[in-house]
């Protein structure tokens, strides 16, 4: 398996889609669909059920061959690939499928090791085991979960394990298909924070399909709306609210949209107050401590 080296000067748009058309028989899912994803952003993709959000993701990652159009991911033309092996950027993306899609005969840690084994066979067993372990912990699973089989995990834990596998190669691009669907609200909020954290720490570009309004408000930099077989609008939520497309208005101004918006405003206010209080009290020495946290841990 080949792996394209990461260029030192990355382009501004890791994903570019132009004039995409997908059809199943007579049923046209996408037509003239254009989309640009900016480097380092979390792009939320929304749309009604059956508007082809997952199909769009499958087209971008080369699982679905479109009827027309061009797709470029990390500078490599996905739509020109005639063969699975032609796509040589697979080591630079990670994908979390809706159900986790873990290999059922391998343990969680072994699942995480699969991409490492495939792309970097020179890494020896000890280091690979260590990598798998910290990825699993990083995804918010307890250490005991590493030796468990997917059938022994709950749905939420399977999603976290799937995320650990998606992160196995430290990808630049992360695709998430409904990561918080089916999680309890506390678990979903924690998962949102986890994704945001990882995105900020690792500098990821995230393509996130979701129905979860809270996720959109909390972590997405921009939101792309799919309707009428194409992306009708891309922008921040205030920008989208300014458009007068009926579906967008209904989506964000429905009862659930309002609730999510209120929650986000409340959170922002609380954060603001907390920050103000903190600033008053411990201004200088706190920031000085922050800077030395990582090296100080090294001495422990």
């Amino acid at each position, binding site marked *: 398996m080949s792996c394209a080296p990461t260029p030192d000067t990355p382009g501004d748009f890791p994903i570019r889609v132009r004039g995409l058309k997908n059809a199943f028989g007579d049923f046209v899912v996408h037509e003239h669909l254009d989309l640009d994803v900016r480097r380092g952003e979390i792009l939320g993709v929304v749309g009604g059920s059956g508007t082809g959000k997952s199909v769009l993701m499958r087209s971008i990652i080369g699982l679905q061959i479109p009827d027309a159009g061009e797709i470029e991911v990390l500078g490599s033309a996905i739509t020109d690939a005639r063969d699975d092996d032609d796509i040589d950027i697979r080591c630079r993306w990670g994908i979390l499928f809706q159900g986790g899609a873990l290999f059922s005969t391998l*343990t969680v840690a072994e699942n995480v090791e699969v991409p490492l084994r495939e792309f970097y066979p020179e890494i020896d067993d000890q280091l690979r085991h260590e990598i798998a372990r910290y990825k699993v912990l990083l995804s918010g699973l307890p250490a005991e979960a590493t030796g468990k089989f997917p059938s022994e995990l709950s749905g939420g834990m399977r999603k976290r394990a799937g995320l650990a596998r998606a992160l196995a190669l430290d990808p630049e691009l992360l695709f998430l298909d409904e990561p918080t669907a089916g999680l309890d609200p506390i678990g979903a909020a924690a998962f949102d924070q986890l994704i945001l954290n990882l995105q900020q720490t690792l500098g990821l570009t995230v393509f996130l399909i979701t129905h979860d309004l809270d996720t959109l408000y909390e972590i997405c930099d921009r939101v792309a709306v799919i309707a009428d077989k194409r992306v009708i609008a891309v922008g921040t939520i205030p920008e989208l609210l300014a458009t007068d497309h009926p579906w967008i208005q209904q989506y964000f101004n429905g009862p659930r949209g309002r609730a999510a918006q209120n929650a986000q405003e409340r959170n922002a206010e609380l954060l603001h107050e907390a920050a103000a209080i903190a600033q008053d009290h411990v201004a200088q020495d706190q920031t000085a401590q922050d800077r030395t946290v990582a090296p100080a841990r090294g001495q422990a």
Partner: protein
Amino acid sequence: MRATADFTTEPGADGGLTLTFRGPLLVSSIGSVDGRLRAVSDAVTAIDLGQIARIDTVGAWTAWSLSQRLGAPIVNASTDAQRLIAAVSGSDSNTDRIEAPRLPLFERVAANVGKFVIGSGAGILQVFGFMGQIILASGNLLRHPGRFRGNALFHQMELIGVNALSIVGLMSFLVGIVIAQQGSVQLRQFGAEFLTVNLVGRITLRELGILMTAIMVAGRSGSAFAAQLGTMKLTEEIDAMRTIGVSPIEALVIPRLLATMLMMPLLGVFGAAMGIIGGAFVSSLTLGIPFFAFLARIPEVVPLHDVWVGLIKGPVFGLIVATAGCFQGLQVKADAEEVGSRTTAAVVLAIFMVIVLDAFFAVFFTEVGWG
């Protein structure tokens, strides 16, 4: 060409050794340097990340675990590197739980034998339980005939019977050719080549037609039952049926059982006929017995009870094949691998039981005077 990571150790400003990383510290570049790093045991007093080009979590982990092991602080780390190190520092180098726990060889063998014995005992009980369920469901269907699924029955009959005609026919035809050809070579030594008709006619109608068909149906349909029901079990379709009040035995198992029992004798007779045609075909070419003369002699030399033997065995073999397939399919619990192993078990069990019962039938029918 991939860039690789590297490191040097040299005396630092404070008199101790400083380990300095160079090059990119990435998952793609770390493999070659990791072994050498683990061999470092000098009194390193600082780990310098000031010279690295880029870093990811694997690089951060390598630096962090090294600093933990040597007790040396990391210096000159960029903000990115610090953030990454903070992110991975929750983990440790303990890797015992990566693979599923395995017992030592001796214990494993003993444990597997024990599991097999207990599992076999439980399996026999479950088979009886399954048959009991089938009898109960059949009784229910007799009392409420309206619940019977005619559509499913006819659909299964098509899959099991009609769609198998070509392969069963071709196979029986070829077997008929082999028997006639090989039989005639042996019979020629006694000058009894004309008895080839008796040989082919009796063996296909009595034994081979139905036996070969049963093996083919076990491979085609028994395996399909196990895989279908097993997958439905995994996707919770069977649980869904149960909660809606539809009995999976009535809706899935009974139509398959009935369809197999109805189609087996028909396929068996068809197979026997194709075998006789194959024999007649070879005889007309090599023995000089005309094709239609061969066929015309069949009713004269084959007693009618041979046909009955074949027809009686058909539904019994069908029952075995379908029961094995459905039973194994419904036993699936865990994962995709189990669907495969259960399907294999269904086919092996079905063919084995069919051959055991065939031997029993051969003795039985001879004893009752149908020899």
